[in-house]
């Protein structure tokens, strides 16, 4: 499309741009509105007694609970532990999963041998392994990290391998005609070409790591957001449960955007350095 300055746009085009901007603003507004209306109604219902605040909590009570946790110095302790477990589980799980995906791409025979095991491992709810992990790794942080690792590990293998295998045989044929070794084919074509798929896999496994950590904390922890949720539920402090979930929401979203940001950087790097 040719570049034109504003004055050169036809009235029709200006209208089109205006419509575009209006619809963008409308969507943003609707998003915030949902959140605000939800919080407002929740608070209102709690105050007039439609919701029992003892069971349903309320936004103000949630905020108060978070403030109390903060001033007691507990908030960042719990966040820190949960974050530590999640990040470690995620990094280890995706790193190991990617390595295994590379090995399976490298050797189609190995891939075929291990395929049924992968299918079963993928179908198995990893949570079922919880008791075994506790016996093996102790009732502590290690078990939780291993749980997060396990959950993101299998997903990573499956989706990264699918990404590698998506790269057409023809591109590999081209590399072969140029005399490329398998390692060159992998590093120069397959890996950079499947980078977007790998990043999508990471986005999925971030979520999976959170599942693993929270479940792990339900089972064995003495601290962390999952612990707060379980503890709050047991002693019937729904304020504490809701507050922990709100914090969890924020953290999970933050980590997701962190990975998305990393993706942007990597794709850019690929364009210039690759």
């Amino acid at each position: 499309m040719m570049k034109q300055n504003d004055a050169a746009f036809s009235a029709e085009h200006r209208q089109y741009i205006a419509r575009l901007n209006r619809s963008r603003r409308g969507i943003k507004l609707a998003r915030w509105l949902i959140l605000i209306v939800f919080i407002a109604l929740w608070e209102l219902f709690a105050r007039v007694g439609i919701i029992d605040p003892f069971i349903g909590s309320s936004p103000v009570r949630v905020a108060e609970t978070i403030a109390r946790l903060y001033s007691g110095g507990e908030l960042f302790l719990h966040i820190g532990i949960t974050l530590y477990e999640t990040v470690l589980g995620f990094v280890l799980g995706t790193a190991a999963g990617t390595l295994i995906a590379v090995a399976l791409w490298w050797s189609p025979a190995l891939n075929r041998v291990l395929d049924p095991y992968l299918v079963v491992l993928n179908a198995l709810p990893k949570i079922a392994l919880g008791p075994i992990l506790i016996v093996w790794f102790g009732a502590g942080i290690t078990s939780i990290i291993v749980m997060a690792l396990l959950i993101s590990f299998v997903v990573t293998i499956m989706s990264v391998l699918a990404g590698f295998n998506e790269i057409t045989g023809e591109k590999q044929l081209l590399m072969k005609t140029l005399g490329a070794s398998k390692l060159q084919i992998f590093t120069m074509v397959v890996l950079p070409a499947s980078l977007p798929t790998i990043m999508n896999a990471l986005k999925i496994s971030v979520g999976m790591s959170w599942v693993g950590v929270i479940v792990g904390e339900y089972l064995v922890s003495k601290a962390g957001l999952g612990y707060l949720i379980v503890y709050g539920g047991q002693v019937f402090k729904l304020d504490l449960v809701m507050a922990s979930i709100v914090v969890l929401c924020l953290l999970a979203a933050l980590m997701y955007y962190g990975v998305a940001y990393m993706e942007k950087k990597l794709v850019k790097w690929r364009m210039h350095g690759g």
Partner: protein
Amino acid sequence: MNGDNAYIVEFNGVSLNYHDAQGETPAIRGLDFGVKKGEFVSIVGPSGCGKTSVLSIAAGIAVPSGGSVRIEGGRPGYMLQQDHLLDWRTVEGNILLGLEVQGNLNEESRSYALELLKTYGLGEFAGKYPSQLSGGMRQKVALIRTLATRPELLLLDEPFSALDFQTRLMLCDEMHDILKREGKTVILVTHDISEAISMGDRVLVFSARPTGVKAEHIIDLSGKSPLERRNAANFKDYFNAIWGELDHDEAK
């Protein structure tokens, strides 16, 4: 062009079988042909007759089941139907791919590749990405990527068939000109008879599977470029002769 009469490609009694769980399919049987230095040979044949396998064998990617193959002048350059440019590399990065793979990337080879790009009218696009180029330009970049490693022999596997008709005719002309000027020896595989006649010094007609050379035509047409040659009076005679020789019932 053919000052030197020595064959730089020789296929002697080459055969190739495809294997799968259902059995064995003979794809090539008793294939004999040679290509002289600087010659442009077109191969036409019905679809699925194993033309591409002939190129794979010449490129050293496939191993024949029998017979002997002799290729001179180092690793042949290979061009596919799709350009397969790497979209995260600039045009420059793409044309240097072969040199990088072969560990021959240095100042001299790099400037040779960039010089090719300039000579053939794409110099200003060196810093652009493939997504910013038209289909015809992309295929030209793919050709320069192939030429950058200075192969003596070029193997073209239907390099125009993914392009629209107009681009195709123009690129035919341009690539023919480039290949002749660079003094390359070329084997072009195509299903397009007109393309084969207009570009080739010689056309080999392959039979249906198991394939072999069914007929051979030395093309003598007035005019230099493929477009001019398409207008030559005897162009139609070649076309009709080859059309008659093709095994049509095998074509799908």
